[in-house]
């Protein structure tokens, strides 16, 4: 990162030319015209279509599988069972407990058992009916409390632990118990957060081709090309250099495509087996069972505070329902505690988090991974502290502000922090001081705050190589091609990368061509998760572009016989400040640089500085920068029907510098929309057999235009010293505090504390009745 400190977060010369402007996205027009190619749009000659046979039982031993009748069906070209893919995988190297197809047991309704590739989907589906599976049905564990106490049956046998605990983390900073006696107020309550799921509009899809050159290509709707590449090599027992993974245009992910999924291994194996390209497209129902969404959590919090509202200690005990596999669960368990230590300072903090296995679809990272649930509980509890002490809810948040350029109680370094400005913005925009507590009964305002990581130091698998790398090729045509392993999942990361390179080189964004997420062509980036792409890929882009700019400027200065500081690159031209006659199109400057330096190409990298608390797990949740958010929600509660309507949400988000305010606003609005839906509409719920209650977009109610509250997004720019031109994340942070802001608004509206999500009319009516009785 030699070039990193050339001009810090400031513009290369004078004012920004690209950054901070409402530039068009590099791929939007292709999407608007239908030209963009998503995975299911790929059609290869001779391509077969594969379908998956899934378990009808929540927990069962697979005694035998007879595929002979399926194999004999005309049109069937390949049948696959678990014995052919025996190597286990999982995104976290320490907890690899998944098989592409069941090898011994099935652990949830929908767990994959066998697959068929045939000339079309109809034939493949017909063949699935012909596969005979003999199961020994086992007792299923569906309740997380059962999973905590029962050691039999075990969802996963043969582990070091002879129980159903997936991960347990207990960390204490300071002494929380000692605060209780001296506290002016102690609030201790139970909260719960329900399961919900990502629901990208594009279902999972993968296509594999085993080429005549002995190399395997996988196109997949994934947000982690690099990890899929590693997992394929492991499971297929192939050399990684013989495997190419490409992420085509992606139709939404939100964390739901950040695990390696069974279909990726299955199509690859079937392509190798049959010698023909193979595609598998999951149905919407299958996507609901694939899940990896928000973990249900039961949370117990105790907060101690002084009379002035200063929080002295927070004590949390959290039970996490992980579903049937580990997925990111190790990280989830840490995040459930590690990411709560801001934007407020509390000198004493303890969390005791336990993730358990149950026989339900596996949970994983949904937007705001692991920290949305504790944020809900704590922000509601903080509101309770404020109410008890008679302090304005915004004021109590200001009084506990952790500050900027500081360290949290658990040893996380905070750099820039615009949380106070976020509070100011939503307070003013919502008319908080004039309206809160003064609206007619049934209407109310609530506030909450939050923080989130901009990437994490923890690179999933241990290594000391860069987290993000890019390459730039400057062509004689004047085009610069930018190769990045980063995954654009709709958040606009390819556009972000192009903007930064265009800014550094003084070029038109249209002359930066982005080639992304193709493991044969692009340097490694770890993928689109933990809100890391803008920060990490962005810094790598700046690093590379500054090296290229140095070559061009040096070569041109030499040719013109002027000082290097006299040469500028701007608006597609290179010119001399002192001599207006000396000017060239950038294209011709590239020729001069190529004569001086040979073929033009540079690399850029980013790796995190050494961060994190000096204790086991201290690097999990350590981020080079944190984003901050505040929401004010306005709700209307119908006391006859119990229905909550979220009328409007004001949200302010500190994203460092907004590299494109239009895209940042889109991320803030989309996050807030998704958070609001978790409160009143969406629930991923299994019945007593482990069967999903409604695996369709009709039953699982993601909001339509008519269900979505008005959202007013405000951008706060704190300019982070280490972010790319000062930028931090914007894609996940702005979800968190939507949820407690709505809960706190309900309290303002009708005086009830709702602590158990989702807020259904039944719960509202019960709470209203209890409130009436206690008065």
């Amino acid at each position, binding site marked *: 990162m030699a070039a990193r400190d050339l001009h810090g977060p400031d513009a290369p010369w004078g004012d920004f030319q690209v950054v901070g402007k*409402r530039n*068009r*996205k590099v*791929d*939007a*027009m292709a*999407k*608007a*015209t*239908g*030209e*963009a*190619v*998503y995975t*299911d*749009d790929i*059609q290869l000659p001779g391509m077969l279509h594969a379908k998956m046979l899934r378990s009808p039982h929540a927990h069962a031993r697979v005694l035998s599988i007879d595929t002979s009748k399926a194999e004999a069906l005309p*049109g069937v070209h390949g049948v696959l069972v678990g014995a052919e893919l025996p190597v286990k995988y999982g995104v976290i190297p320490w907890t690899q407990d998944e098989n592409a197809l069941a090898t011994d047991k099935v652990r949830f309704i929908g767990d994959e058992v066998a697959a068929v590739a045939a000339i*079309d989907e*109809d034939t493949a589906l017909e063949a699935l009916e012909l596969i005979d599976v003999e199961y020994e049905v086992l007792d299923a564990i569906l309740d997380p409390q059962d999973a905590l106490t029962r050691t039999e049956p075990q969802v996963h046998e043969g582990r070091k632990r002879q129980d159903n605990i997936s991960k347990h983390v207990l960390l204490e900073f300071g002494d929380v118990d000692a605060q209780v006696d001296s506290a002016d107020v102690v609030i201790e309550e139970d909260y719960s957060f329900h399961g919900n799921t*990502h*629901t*990208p*509009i*594009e*279902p999972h899809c993968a296509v594999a081709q085993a080429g005549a050159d002995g190399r395997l290509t996988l196109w997949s709707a994934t947000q982690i090309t690099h990890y899929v590449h590693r997992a394929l090599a492991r499971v297929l027992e192939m050399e990684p250099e013989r495997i190419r993974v490409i992420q085509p*245009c*992606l*139709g*939404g*992910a*939100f964390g739901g495509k950040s695990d390696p999924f069974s279909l990726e291994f299955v199509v690859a194996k079937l392509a190798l087996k049959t010698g023909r390209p193979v595609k598998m*497209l999951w*149905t*919407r129902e299958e996507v609901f069972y694939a899940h990896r969404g928000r973990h249900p959590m039961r949370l117990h919090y105790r907060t101690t505070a002084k009379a002035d509202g200063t929080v002295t200690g927070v004590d949390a005990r959290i039970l996490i329902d992980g579903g049937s596999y580990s997925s990111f669960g190790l990280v989830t368990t840490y995040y459930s505690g590690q990411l709560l230590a801001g934007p407020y300072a509390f000198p004493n903090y303890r969390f005791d988090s336990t993730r358990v296995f149950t026989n339900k679809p596996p949970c994983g990272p949904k937007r705001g991974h692991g920290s949305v649930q504790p944020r809900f509980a704590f922000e509601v509890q903080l509101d309770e502290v404020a109410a008890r002490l008679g302090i304005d809810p915004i004021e109590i948040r200001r009084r506990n502000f952790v500050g900027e350029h500081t360290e949290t109680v658990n040893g996380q370094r905070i750099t820039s922090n615009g949380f106070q400005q976020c509070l100011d913005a939503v307070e003013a925009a919502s008319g908080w001081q004039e309206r809160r507590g003064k609206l007619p009964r049934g209407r109310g305002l609530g506030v909450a705050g939050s923080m989130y990581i901009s990437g994490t130091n923890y690179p999933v698998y241990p290594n000391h190589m860069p987290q993000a790398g890019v390459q730039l090729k400057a062509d004689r045509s004047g085009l610069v091609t930018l190769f990045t392993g980063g995954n654009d*999942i*709709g*958040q*606009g990361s390819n556009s972000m990368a192009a903007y930064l390179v265009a800014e550094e080189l003084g070029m038109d964004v249209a002359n930066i061509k982005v080639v992304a997420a193709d493991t044969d062509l692009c340097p490694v980036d770890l993928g689109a998760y933990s809100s890391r792409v803008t920060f990490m890929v962005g810094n790598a882009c700046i690093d590379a572009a500054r090296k290229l700019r140095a070559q061009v400027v040096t070569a041109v200065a030499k040719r013109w016989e002027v000082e290097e500081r006299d040469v500028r690159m701007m608006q597609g031209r290179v010119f001399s400040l002192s001599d207006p006659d000396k000017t060239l199109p950038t294209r011709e400057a590239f020729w001069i640089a190529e004569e001086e330096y040979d073929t033009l190409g540079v690399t850029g990298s980013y790796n995190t500085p050494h961060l994190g608390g000096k204790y086991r797990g201290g690097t999990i949740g350590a981020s080079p920068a944190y984003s901050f958010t505040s929401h004010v929600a306005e709700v209307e509660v119908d006391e006859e029907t119990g229905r909550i309507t979220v009328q409007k949400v004001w949200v302010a988000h500190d994203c460092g510098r907004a590299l494109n305010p*239009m*895209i940042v*606003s*889109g991320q803030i*609005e*989309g*996050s*807030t*929309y*998704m958070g609001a839906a978790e409160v009143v509409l969406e629930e991923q719920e299994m019945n007593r057999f482990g069967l999903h209650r409604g695996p*369709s*977009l*009709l039953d699982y109610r*993601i909001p*339509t*235009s*008519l269900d*979505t509250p008005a*959202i007013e*997004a405000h951008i706060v720019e704190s300019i982070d010293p280490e972010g790319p031109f000062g930028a931090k994340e914007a894609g996940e942070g702005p979800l968190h505090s939507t949820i407690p802001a709505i809960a706190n608004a309900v309290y303002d509206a009708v005086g009830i504390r709702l602590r158990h999500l989702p807020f259904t009319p039944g719960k509202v009516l019960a709470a209203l009745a209890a409130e009436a009785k206690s008065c």
Partner: protein
Amino acid sequence: MPPMRVLRLHVNGDELELAAPEHWSLLEVLRYRAGLTGSKQGCDKGDCGACTVLIDGEPQLACLLVPATLEGRAITTIEGLAPAHRRAGGEGVDPVQDAFDQCGALQCGFCQPGMILSAKALLTRNPQPSHRQIQDALAGNLCRCTGYTQIYQAVERAAEELAAAATGATGTDAAGTGEQV
């Protein structure tokens, strides 16, 4: 093999003759026979709206349509919008597509072909819709990325652009969505 049917469909101004399994939906025929993959499949059950196409100018769900019933009807997919705009003497893409781009309404883009066609149909029948009318017209198209705000802005912007263009234009059906077979 399932029974096949030969279909004569009028798609984006072209007369296409295609053979497809007779139980296939219009969406499958468009995507996997006609190669028009711009129409997306999000649910295959009529719940998400990603497959929305225009049938004689009206937005309909291609995953629920039986193609044999559509012979003689004008089918417009997302791929047809910009060429129709050019045929009508316009430049670039349809103003609705351009507005979606300019307003940041395209994130993952998967719902947007359907969303844009629903917006196009709205503006064709109601060139100056209210905010509420826009919300109503798009209620059948689920978007998971945007929270809809920038989509509303795009439709409002497209309405302004179309109004500005109409003051000097000849009043042609720029997108050709209602063009007769």
